[in-house]
């Protein structure tokens, strides 16, 4: 599977797609305040695939929500040089009353795509995630993996079709963690294919070290409570023994970070 990363698309060195400088996020006030993020510095280049790794409660999701604009940082600076980010959650969260195609169509509609252009674009997006034949099915008739693919198509639909002016950004919050191993495997390959086809930067949150190393060009480890960047690893194009070594190294570090919370 590592072969899939051997030819990363060449990208121009431009401004980063996402930049976080000293970002803090605190929930609550006074003595009961909980610091989720304490001074996070992170950059994601245009077109780069970055995996954000950490144990439970490390503020990975909070970080993603900040970038998605669902929450605002308590302090620090967050700069986005992209079009509106496309977001995928752990659950597919499709609208249960709409067919797969209508779910994608709704995203296009909310993104302001003209009615006449929507059917063609919907077909195109469903083709991209290899779901051409099931547009008329409703979410409850689809498998978990298929639902996540519809969610991916919907996320991509929320971006403007012509991503020429601004680079695209895809935010993913453990999107495959609820799937069984074989489905996850297929979807990981699918995501890499879509990533290469769409030229989008990806910020991918996971707690699975192997997944992070397999998918990402760079793996960023966050500490827990409060979340801070511990280290990052360049894992681009690694394969075979090198890949296994990095997985071991990151795993060791992650275990170290987790055990440091005891006592």
């Amino acid at each position, binding site marked *: 599977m590592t072969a899939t990363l051997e030819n990363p698309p060449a990208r121009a060195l431009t401004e980063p797609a996402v930049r976080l400088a000293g970002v803090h996020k605190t929930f609550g006030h006074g003595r009961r305040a909980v610091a989720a993020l304490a001074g996070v510095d992170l950059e994601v280049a245009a077109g780069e695939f970055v995996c954000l790794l950490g144990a439970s409660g490390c503020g990975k999701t909070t970080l993603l929500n900040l970038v998605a604009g669902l929450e605002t940082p308590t302090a620090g600076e967050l700069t986005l040089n992209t079009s509106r980010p496309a977001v995928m959650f752990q659950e597919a*969260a499709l*609208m249960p009353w709409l067919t797969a195609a209508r779910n994608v169509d709704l995203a296009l509609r*909310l993104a302001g795509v003209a009615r006449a252009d929507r059917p063609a674009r919907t077909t195109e997006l469903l083709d991209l995630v*290899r779901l051409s034949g099931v547009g008329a099915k409703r979410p409850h*008739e689809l*498998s978990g*993996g298929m639902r996540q693919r519809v969610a991916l198509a919907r996320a991509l639909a929320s971006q403007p079709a012509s991503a020429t002016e601004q680079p695209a950004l895809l935010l993913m919050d453990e999107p495959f963690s609820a799937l069984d*191993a074989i489905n996850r495997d297929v979807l990981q390959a699918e995501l890499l294919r879509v990533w290469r086809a769409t030229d989008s930067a990806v910020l991918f949150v996971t707690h699975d070290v*192997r997944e992070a190393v397999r998918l990402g060009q760079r793996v960023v480890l966050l500490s827990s409570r409060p979340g801070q960047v511990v280290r990052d690893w360049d894992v681009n194009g690694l394969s075979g023994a090198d890949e296994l070594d990095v997985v071991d190294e990151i795993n060791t570090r*992650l275990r170290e970070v987790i055990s440091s919370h005891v006592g």
Partner: protein
Amino acid sequence: MSAEVPTESGTGAEAAQLTAEPAEATVTDFDDEAVGAGLDLLDTTHPSTITGRDRLRKVAKAVLPPLLAVVLLIGIWQALWAAALWPEDQLPAPKAVADNLWGLISTGQVLSILYVSVHRGVLGYLVGVAIATPLGLLLAKVSMLRSAFGPLLSALQSLPSVAWVPLAVLWFGPTPPTIYTVILLGSVPSIANGLVAGIDQIPPILPRVGRVLGAGALANARHILLPAALPGYLAGLKQGWAFSWRSLMAAELIANSPQLGLGLGQYLQNGSSYLDMSMIISAIVLILFVGLGVELLVFRPLERRVLRSRGLSGAL
């Protein structure tokens, strides 16, 4: 969550093995595609084919038991009447009631009676829906309004709407506005409460999805909140109709005047004045008939469609 933290053992390692072993072999794009397509096929639910005979059996299963129950009840009634335990003016024969009903039908009088009541009920109900829908949305989304008026609305829902009749009669006299007031006070609380319950039951992830897709407050309400709340809203609408119809009957029974015409409630009241049990039972049968008709023709199909499309089968 915590169980899934990769710690060398457990699910993480198992998954790693599954994905790692074949990875060293040559895995091409074609393989992924074939595996993916296979998974899709295996995972998709296939609806079973339903033949005409199955459908007939299903209809028979739904229709026969209630029909038999009605026949049984009429049989018991007939037997009790034949036993002559009570005088005729307290328990008339089923035949006497049927004759009375047939008299109403054959003269066409039944149509005018039903029209007077049903059109009032429907009109009042529709106005109730128009008022209760924005009210429910506001109550569900504005927490201050909700804590202020929510308990009041729930209290109103449990108040028998017949209690409003004396008040409305003193305000408006025995006129149509009295009837509509009672219908509104009866139906608005249950419709609004149904919508509030429907909105409360929306998984919070759905409006969040709306926000990341770029929906503003209005677009979110229109494309996500309202359709997502539809099952609860529909339950409220159904209950709202039942309350409208009951309130209407209560109002018609008490508020009598030539201005109001002859509706089902007045017909029932007349039966009571003439001490005519056949008339009274006929009126009750007609009131039940309308209630059941609206349920079967309007709400049951709507509910079935909404629940089926979401994969919630329900007991229908």
